[in-house]
């Protein structure tokens, strides 16, 4: 082995080590992290090499045109992805520094710590408003004694308490779409998660309800980490600390073109495609 080669190896090692140290330095501040995540449905690769870190108690927006794999990606973060037959995954997803796909990890436990809100409001129609809020506890078998406190606290956090406090025993299906979505947020919060995934939570809602949900997101972000998929550029600007731009062109798997503080992505994007997208030139 020549000296030059020896030096090369050494330099790489040092770089690797520096990276490691840098990561450890931020470990306390990073709630979740995706490392080189690739996703397949059957033989079709839909996501390639996605690495994003989600700092604790921040809001991260995932933006990009339809079909770029944002929703698929967000579903890998709480192991819902694996419930689709033929789904496959490579890479790592770390939650509090631990790989959530490690064989000893119970996916149920992960889904309780990493809650999710979907595009379409999906309260359980056969349950009351109160029943819906508490359904996470019931479904997962968690035991809590202070049910009334949980209902009040989470409905307040979701900005719904004043509208429903007098009719907690009414059917959840009677609420408006925006109210249902906030009820679903309260339901997700009731199991006390530390991360909340939101997959286009406002796409089915009117502007007024959207604003209320955005307020809720801002308020919640002081306590939990939020990752939100959105098609609404203004929404990303309004609520997100960080933004990642996904793109899939001509049938290639989706990947992250650019990521960073929201102000940078929208104010000073480094990639032409990001600039075009955030200015509404495509997508």
């Amino acid at each position, binding site marked *: 082995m020549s000296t030059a080669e020896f030096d090369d190896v050494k330099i790489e090692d040092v770089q690797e080590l520096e990276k490691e140290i840098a990561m450890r330095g931020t470990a306390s501040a990073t709630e979740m992290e995706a490392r080189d995540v690739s996703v397949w449905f059957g033989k079709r690769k839909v996501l390639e090499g996605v690495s994003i870190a989600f700092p604790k108690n921040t809001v991260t927006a995932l933006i990009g045109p339809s079909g770029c794999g944002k929703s698929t990606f967000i579903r890998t973060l709480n192991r819902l992805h694996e419930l689709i037959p033929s789904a496959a995954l490579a890479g790592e997803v770390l939650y509090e520094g631990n790989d959530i796909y490690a064989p000893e990890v119970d996916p149920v436990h992960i889904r309780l710590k990493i809650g999710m809100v979907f595009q379409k409001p999906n309260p359980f129609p*056969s349950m009351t408003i109160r029943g819906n809020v508490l359904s996470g506890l019931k479904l997962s078998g968690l035991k809590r004694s202070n049910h009334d406190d949980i209902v009040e606290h989470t409905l307040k956090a979701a900005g719904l308490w004043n509208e429903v406090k007098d009719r907690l025993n009414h059917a959840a299906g009677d609420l408006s779409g925006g109210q249902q979505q906030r009820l679903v947020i309260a339901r997700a919060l009731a199991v006390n998660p530390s991360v909340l995934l939101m997959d286009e939570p406002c796409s089915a809602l009117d502007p007024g309800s959207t604003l209320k949900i955005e307020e809720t997101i801002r308020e919640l972000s002081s306590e939990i980490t939020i990752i939100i998929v959105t098609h609404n550029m203004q929404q990303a600007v309004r609520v997100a600390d960080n933004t990642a731009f996904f793109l899939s062109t001509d049938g290639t798997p989706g990947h992250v073109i650019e990521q960073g503080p929201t102000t940078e992505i929208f104010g000073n994007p480094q990639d032409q495609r990001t600039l075009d997208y955030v200015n509404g030139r495509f997508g």
Partner: protein
Amino acid sequence: MSSTETEFRDLQSAATSHRGDRVFNRIITAAAFTALIVLAGITIFLGFQAVPVLQTQGIDFLTTSIWDPPNYGIWGMLYGSLLLSIIALVIAVPTSLLLSVFMVFLAPNSVAKVLTNLVDLMAAIPSVILGLWAFYVLSPVSEQWQALLNQYLGWIPIFQNSSGNFSGTPFTAGFILAIMMIPIVTSVTREVLGRTPPELINAAEALGCSMWTMLRYVALPYGRGGLVGGVMLGLGRALGETIAVFFVLKIVFDPVNYYNIIESGGGSVATLIVSKFGEASGPYETQLLLAAGFFLFMGTLLVNVVANLIVNRTGRLKS
């Protein structure tokens, strides 16, 4: 009066609607009424037969259990139909539910498809074939099962048997009815469970629940109406089934077998009719059998109404 001032425009009359739609409308309405007319026709025909029977036999026709001229009473048969249906339900409903849960939520697509076809095929087996099968194959085996039930669970009243004769029992008849119900109930429950909105399943999964809790709190409550409907369809077949039961059940009028399901002898209105019709002694006995048919028909309606009430009462939230 405002109605004198406001002149409403004609929105509904035929003059304003499309002609093709009008014709189509009439045809559909006529078709819909055909079902009602047939139902009414049967009710009236059977009712007319039942009136003279009630005049001669009185209420005893419904409350006593005897078929011995000049006294006739079908209580034992009516009760027997109910008992057989309950036995069939107890066996068929859990089996069908498990089968459809497997097909909808667990089985790979290819397996589910094959199973679906097999189950649908099962529904196509003529009941006389099932009856013959029950007579030659099921009955001897069933007698052994019943002997075991009696031996180990004999302390439960329903599994008591004092005669030692395990043939021609309500249990075997209920079992063959269950086999006939399973394809119908499975077909409907599979369809209903398959329609659980994916977003509700998503919601349950995202809340970290297991398969069982998802079924218990999401899929089953969501499909409640449809599931009960499926069971009712199956029950309809059980109540009206004639031939299969005829092969395996020993018809006994007196004493009425109330709950000893593995004791030889029981009743079923439909089977009574088929077994007596060919050898009816005269027009009066035929009339008696038709009257029995009328009350079977009424009983079936009653069961349906009660089931609907149950569905509407339970778990309905106030709006």
